[in-house]
Structures are given as structure tokens and as C-alpha cells.
């Protein structure tokens, strides 16, 4: 697994589907391995092959279209929902992708991806549309993703958008740090916490509330009615 990423430039594979769940990314029957390697060959297995047979590729599935290759996977919103299986991130990375672009990610998938130096870039719906249109019209369309600058750019037109990334995670990605190293460096604090606990957590509450109370709204909320 390549550690540390910053600039990724190249062509993309457009998977024009929404709500791609991790059961599709890697079906459960391939989770029997006890290593992290080799999941790429079963990526999107049931969308890729008929009758679970590698000799019968589904012609209209995008990974089977030789025109589209690249390190960037572009997909519809709510990518990676469902099961927490990290095997999904491993499979995408192992297949050869370094970046996924979508307008919305499921929370667990996002964490799993970042922990494997697979970058989940979240763009607006409209920019996603633009990317799909450009890539579908011309498979050689190049995209550049820059972690340092937090930008994603269509190189041909220069159109670009900024994306969010947690500053801590950004440092990790750029430097190849991982969360476990960081947590291990806290061992002393963790042991102290275990004996004395966070008995008086009030200072933490206050700090947080001052920060976010302004953003909080909508005390009346929404009333939902059925649409049977």
C-alpha cells in the first residue's frame, strides 16, 4: 500500500450510479481472506461478471470498458453505504484507484478509505455532473487532485472546485502518518485517563458549545407524514 499522497493526475472511470453499497463493491462471499491483499480482482464482482464467471464479463459494466481506465473512480452520491467492511476500500485501492470522487459518502467508508490512503474527494452535485459529462464525452479527460491545495480540477477546461478535508487527516495523508502511530504516542495519557477518568468533563462541553451553538437551529423540527 502506497503511503502518503498529494497530487494525483490522470484519467477517470465514471461509475454513474448512486447509493453504491459496500456489498456491491465487494460481496460478502469474498471476505473470507485473512489478509488485506488481493481484493481488487473481485471489486464489483457481481456487476462485472455474469454467473459469477470471469470468462463472462458484463459488456456494459464500466470496468469492462477498455476505453475507461485510470486511478480516479467517479461515482454517484452516497457512495460506500451499508456494511462497514474495510475490504471495500482495500478492493478499490488494490484494483488501482487512489481517489474516489462523489458528491456524498457514507461515514464509515470515508474513514476506511482515509485509513488506507484512498482519497475520498467530495464535490458539489453540479461539479460531479460536470466531471461525469466531461469523462463520458472523452475518456482521455484528465483530472488533477491536489491534497495540499484541496482542489480538484478538470485539466482541459481548468474548471476546479475546493474540497474539504480534516486538517489532521490532511497531515496524515501528506506525510504518510497513520492513526495508530498517533494513538500509540498518547499511551501515557490513555493510562492516566483509565485511572482518573474524565470525571469533570464540563470544560470540554463548554468549549464545544461555544463553538457550535450558533450553528444549531431548527428547534421546532420537521414533522413527517407518510406518502403511502
Amino acid at each position, binding site marked *: 500500500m502506497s503511503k502518503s499522497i498529494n497530487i494525483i493526475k490522470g484519467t477517470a472511470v465514471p461509475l454513474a450510479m448512486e447509493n453504491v453499497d459496500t456489498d456491491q463493491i465487494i460481496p460478502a462471499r469474498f471476505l473470507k481472506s485473512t489478509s488485506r491483499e488481493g481484493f481488487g480482482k473481485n471489486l464489483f464482482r457481481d456487476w462485472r461478471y455474469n454467473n459469477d464467471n470471469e470468462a463472462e464479463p458484463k459488456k456494459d459494466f464500466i470496468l469492462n470498458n477498455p476505453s475507461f481506465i485510470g486511478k480516479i473512480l467517479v461515482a454517484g452520491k452516497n457512495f460506500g453505504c451499508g456494511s462497514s467492511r474495510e475490504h471495500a476500500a482495500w478492493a478499490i485501492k488494490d484494483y488501482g484507484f487512489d481517489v474516489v470522487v462523489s458528491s456524498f459518502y457514507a461515514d464509515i467508508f470515508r*474513514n476506511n478509505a482515509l485509513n488506507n490512503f484512498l482519497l475520498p474527494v467530495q464535490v458539489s452535485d453540479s461539479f460531479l455532473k460536470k466531471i461525469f459529462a466531461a469523462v463520458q464525452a472523452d475518456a482521455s479527460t484528465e483530472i488533477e487532485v491536489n491534497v495540499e491545495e484541496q482542489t480538484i480540477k478538470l485539466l482541459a477546461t481548468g474548471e476546479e472546485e475546493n474540497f474539504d478535508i480534516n486538517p489532521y487527516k490532511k497531515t496524515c495523508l501528506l506525510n504518510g502518518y497513520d492513526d495508530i502511530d498517533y494513538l500509540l504516542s498518547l499511551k501515557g495519557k490513555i493510562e492516566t485517563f483509565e485511572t482518573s477518568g474524565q470525571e469533570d468533563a464540563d470544560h470540554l462541553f463548554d468549549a464545544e458549545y461555544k463553538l457550535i451553538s450558533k450553528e444549531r437551529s431548527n428547534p421546532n*423540527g420537521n414533522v413527517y407524514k407518510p406518502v403511502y
Partner: protein
Amino acid sequence: MGKTLFDKIWYKHVVEEVQAGPSALYIDKHFIHEVTSPQAFGGLKKRGLKVFRPKQVVATADHNVPTLNQHLPIKEILSRQQVEQLHENCAENDIELYGLGHPYQGIVHVIGPELGITQPGMTIVCGDSHTSTHGAFGAIAFGIGTSEVEMVLATQCVLQSKPKLMRINVEGELKRGVVSKDIILFIISTISSSGATGYFVEFAGSAIRNLSMEARMTICNMSIEMGARGGMIAPDETTFEYLKGREFAPKGQAWNDAVAQWKTLFSDEDAVFDKEIFIEAADIEPMITYGTNPGMGISVNGTVPLSSTLEEKDRASYLKALEYMGLEPGAAITGKKIDYVFIGSCTNSRIEDLRLVASVVKGKKKADDVHVWVVPGSKQVEKQAIEEGIDKIFEAAGFELRQPGCSACLAMNEDKIPAGKYCISTSNRNFEGRQGPNARTFLVSPLTAAAAAITGRVTDVRRFLAESTESAENLM
């Protein structure tokens, strides 16, 4: 300002706040199973580390185990190796393992609560998205990936950003024949399968308060199906009553102290949520999904939506889902022929779920052309079902009672629904291929599954409740 239930627990567990980053959150209990842990142990070994707090880890084998002949060695080689690997890892690291054959073995989210390991106020993680189940006890419980499993094994902490908070209030009385599975399917169909992504959800309101612990677990279990990081319900007398006397629940004075502390766990009256939703319990019907994500749900008496009622951008995936399911827009769902009934999974395989099913099928037989699999959530549930004679009711009905495990919920073992067949299922996911390549899934409550078992078709269970002498109402 008041504090939310979530915040009260979260801040008590923050060891360190990373600047402009996530928090290092201390984890009280860590459940592991055979499928998402081997690579984590592998990583630990590579770093030359041992498990930091083995006493706070509990293991079971559930995802990949056969549900027949569990006393024999596992036939399938890869599955056997994975389960053996778990045994080795647990032995090497001094971790309590409830493996195959152990009287406590079962689906990880069923055994935690029933053994009293899951308690209010705790932080709980597991390499499985349905860890949200444990939130029913007023705990912060969420699923994690394997790298995070490794983090927790190494440090008993996980790095997490604090989610936004949502409260979903369900008020009033439920209709007859409507149970907690219908509540959660209704909620997901209303806010969509990504409607709570980025949020942790507290379920509240009189309809939730009136639910049993088992029913509350069903609701929290499926929080992840609307994208939520987790779901939770404030602990109350129902919670304490459930926990009292369980194997690992505190005893004696420790119990009194614990309850006193647990009673402080609720959202203060003036606590503010980032989002709040209100639902009338009386609006909820027995529910069923028609599509390929859990948000595609309708009343069992409803019709598959017409694509004209959907937003333009949602139509393509909607039509793809219908094609997969072999359903027509506008079609009624009642009366649809089914081939399999699966009663199981961490959503609905507890003793109360089996009782609900038994209350409907008692004295009746399954339809000739359906296969009915009942897979209890744990050895304890299996044992209790036998003690209560529920196994006899199922046997007389022609159901197949199997041994505990995840089974056809994710079809990792041989319990697969054949391609093209329809399965009405009490599990939680109707994704393409979830129950086997090209299998088609309708998600329903245990009551609705029971009705379908009898008729071989999608059926409104209230038909049977009316003629049944035994009311299922007091079982909800």
C-alpha cells in the same frame, strides 16, 4: 444550555482532542468477530504489539459459520481457517471467545446485550456497522473498519470526529400489527437511506418509551440504514429491568451504584439538536421494502411508487432497482408470491422476535412451496425457544430451525437465496446480491414474515391477528 444524552457520554470518554481534528475516544467495550478482525491482529503483530486491554474485548464467531451441524468441523476451508484464526488470535492475546459450541455463542449484537456486557453510558465499537444496536441501552455504539479495530486493539481508543446530533421523536400509540421494525422501516423510507449520514440519532417519544428492550434494539440496529453513525435511546426502568441479573451486569451494591449513575443519562429538557424530526406512531403501517436499499419502503398494502412521483435525478437508480426486483411501477405488493422466508439476523432474531412469529403461526402450517428458515440470534435464544416450546410450533408449521449465526442476512456461508428467488426477510439489508447473487429481498417485521410463511405471499398480518385468539399486542 442543556446537555444531550450523546454529549454526556461522549465527553466523559474524550482522552484527547486532536487540534482541528478528531477526538481520541476511549472505548469501554470492543466486540470482535472472525471476518473483520484477522487483518487487525495481523497489523498488530507487524508492529510487535499485543492487545492493550484484552479484558475489554469479547469475541464470537457469527458471520461465517454454518447454521447446521455446528458440532462438526466447518467444511468450507476458507471459513474454517478464518474461524481458526480467530481462536488463535484470542488465545494469543488472552481474549474471551464465545466460539462455535460455546453456550454464549451467537450474533455479536445479540450476545452483547443478552449477557449484560452492553450497559448504559458505555462507548462500544465493533468491526460491524450494526454495532448501533447497542445504543438501545443508552450507549454510544458504532461500527468501525478494520484499521480502527486495530487502533482499539492497540490503544483502547479510536479517533473519531464528533458527529452532528439528530433526535427522532415518535409519539402516540402504534396500530395493531405494527411493531418496532415497522417504525424503523417507516423512518428510513421517510428520510431516505442517507438521510442521517453525518448524524448520531437519539430516538425518543412515547412510542419509543413503550417499547421493550428487544424492540428498541431493532430500531437502533437499523440506524445505520439511514446513514447514521449510530442510534441511541435513553435508559429507563425498562433498560434496568432487562439488565438486572444478567451474567455480566453489576451485582449487589455495584448494581445500585450503576443504576444511580445510569439515571443521569438522558437529554436535558433544554438540550438542542442539530436536527429534530417528529413522527406520529398512528401514521405507521406494517412496512415492506420493494427496492434495493432499505429506504425503498412502503406500507404492505401500498403500491410500488410510480417513477413520475420521484425526482428526475432519482429515477435511473429507481428503475434499475425495480428491474432487479422484477417489479412494475404502480404494482400492488400484497399477494406477491415469495419463495423463501428468512427469520433471523441481528435485527430480528431475539427471543421476542421468535415469540412474535410463534404467536402468528401457532397451529398453522407454512405454504407448501416456501422454504422457511428460522435462525436464532444466539445459543441462549435457541435454548430459550426450546424451553418455551417455540421450536415445536415451528416444527409443526414446517419451518426449519437452524443454529445461531448471521446466515442468510449476508449469505457468507452456504445459506444463500438462489438467483431470481424472492425472500421475505427480517434482516436489515435488501442490497443487490446481499442474500445471494441475484437474490431478491423484501425486508419486513417478524409478524409480516410469519404471515408470508403461512400464505406464501406478501400478506397483511392483521388478517391473522384478528382470528388469532392470542393477541400479539402484548408481545410488542
